[in-house]
């Protein structure tokens, strides 16, 4: 049950996207998200979608896994899509009392649906192809400038690393505890909502107890190895920019310029 979650999962590989520097990937992801929401006509939307799909293919990860992460937000996408059909102006295509479907509404619906889907796809690309430790390392590097405001960037990054590291451990633990309570006849699948919430107690309490126990053990282990924060620490794996990253950046720039140009030349269909 809990094993079906693909969001945030890292899938090792050697594709071009896997080999990109994590910093490049994070910055490009942010840029792509900005531009997918900037794309205001069908040409630029198509351009962004095509590029995102190309990137997805380049990861050489089975498309089924992407579909799985899309499935999680399917309901949200459909709901916003449908709501948007009725929210728009322009030529009226169909009318029933207060409800009317307009050309603008249909455009809105298509844009919202595609934008969210692409957003999830390219975010999955980042988490699928970047190991959690690379990800937090890169975040630490990117946020480094904040340390002049006395923000402890290293500590935040360390907390994130630990949190990410322990997600699978806690999932496994949840699985084990659920099995143990099910073996004692705990009924998690039937009954009304209050009954179900009550049924979670035998799982949540042991889970919290073990999370605190693990945190305590980990803190002791770190102290035993004289861990003392970020000053003067070196890394085993050093992030470095390569020709590949340069290529990725230039390629993306061209796409972004394309989106801007098409936005300027062609009238926008959505706001």
């Amino acid at each position: 049950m809990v094993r079906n979650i693909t969001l945030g999962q890292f899938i090792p590989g050697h594709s071009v996207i896997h080999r990109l520097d994590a910093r490049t990937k994070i910055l490009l992801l942010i840029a792509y998200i900005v531009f997918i929401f900037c794309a205001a006509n069908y040409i630029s939307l198509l351009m962004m979608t095509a590029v995102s799909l190309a990137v997805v293919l380049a990861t050489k990860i089975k498309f089924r896994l992407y579909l799985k992460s899309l499935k999680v937000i399917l309901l949200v996408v459909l709901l916003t899509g449908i709501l948007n059909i009725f929210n728009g102006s322009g030529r009226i295509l169909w009318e029933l009392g207060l409800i009317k479907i307009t050309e603008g509404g249909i455009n809105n619906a298509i844009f919202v649906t595609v934008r969210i889907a692409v957003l999830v796809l390219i975010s999955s690309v980042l988490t699928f192809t970047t190991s959690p430790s690379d990800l937090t390392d890169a975040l630490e590097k990117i946020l480094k400038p904040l340390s002049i405001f006395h923000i402890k960037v290293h500590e935040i990054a360390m907390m994130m690393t630990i949190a990410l590291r322990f997600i699978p451990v806690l999932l496994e633990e949840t699985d084990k505890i659920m099995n143990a309570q099910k073996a004692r006849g705990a009924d998690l699948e039937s009954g009304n909502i209050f009954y179900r919430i009550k049924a979670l107690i035998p799982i949540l309490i042991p889970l919290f107890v073990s999370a605190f126990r693990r945190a305590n053990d980990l803190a002791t282990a770190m102290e035993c190895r004289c861990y003392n924060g970020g000053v003067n620490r070196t890394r085993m794996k050093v992030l470095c920019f390569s020709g590949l990253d340069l290529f990725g950046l230039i390629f993306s720039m061209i796409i972004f310029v394309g989106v801007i140009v098409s936005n300027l030349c062609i009238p926008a269909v959505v706001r």
Partner: protein
Amino acid sequence: MSIIKVEKLTLVYGQGTSFEKTALNDVSFEIQSGDFVGVIGHTGSGKSTLVQLLNGLLKPTDGKVFLDGKDIWANPKKIRNVRFKVGMVFQYPEYQLFEETVYKDIAFGPKNMGMTEEETDQKVRSAAEFAGLQSDHLYKSPFDLSGGEKRRAAIAGVIAMDPDVLILDEPTAGLDPLGRDVLLSQIRNYHNMRKNTIVLVSHSMEDVARICDKILVMDHGNKKMFDTTENVFLRAEELESIGLRIPQITKIMHMLKQNGVNINANIFTVEQAFNEIINYLGT
């Protein structure tokens, strides 16, 4: 009469993904009512997977599990009843404790079965006694107990359901030698008194040899042997080829016999060996 029958059981984890792994491969056997079976094998040999299939926590990819002659997955909605009949004590069971008092925690299983207060009370007390818990521990918080006592409380929680088949997955893991000995002999006593069926999973030959009547040997998801303890240990070389060792004392007795000392070599504990050798020297 066979209480558990397993037919061509196969389990594949993560079927259809890149993490596909066959944990159990075409395993068939029968456990008779009243048997005390040890399941032995290396880490990753499929022991834990096998026992989780026996009480319906995992659903087999292929093959069937019969309990009292009935396919346990015939009606998936009734699977809870199977879990009441086949009690399961997991590895490190102390991590499942959650109630305010040990008493309430042990009562969790019986209450889920729908027993009355009186029945529950009686089951809780007898289970605590079987597991060797002192009665004043019953009203303490389970989190105030020592490691060994927590383990006992958790085992009592399963025994309280009075299952026909009791499965214990590595019950002695992480206990000191004395604690281990005491726990094993308590399990044996429980079996002798209730005459129910027990399946004990372990990777320690010494433990299994001491208390089990039959041994099921697993290797890489396959059933290698299933026979009485004596017969399994006669195949010492085969066991060694899959990286398992017969108890040291049994090995010594086998060697003595091979060198012409006329003794009974089917001996699994130092105590038995001591008596056997004294007897031999006396005659």
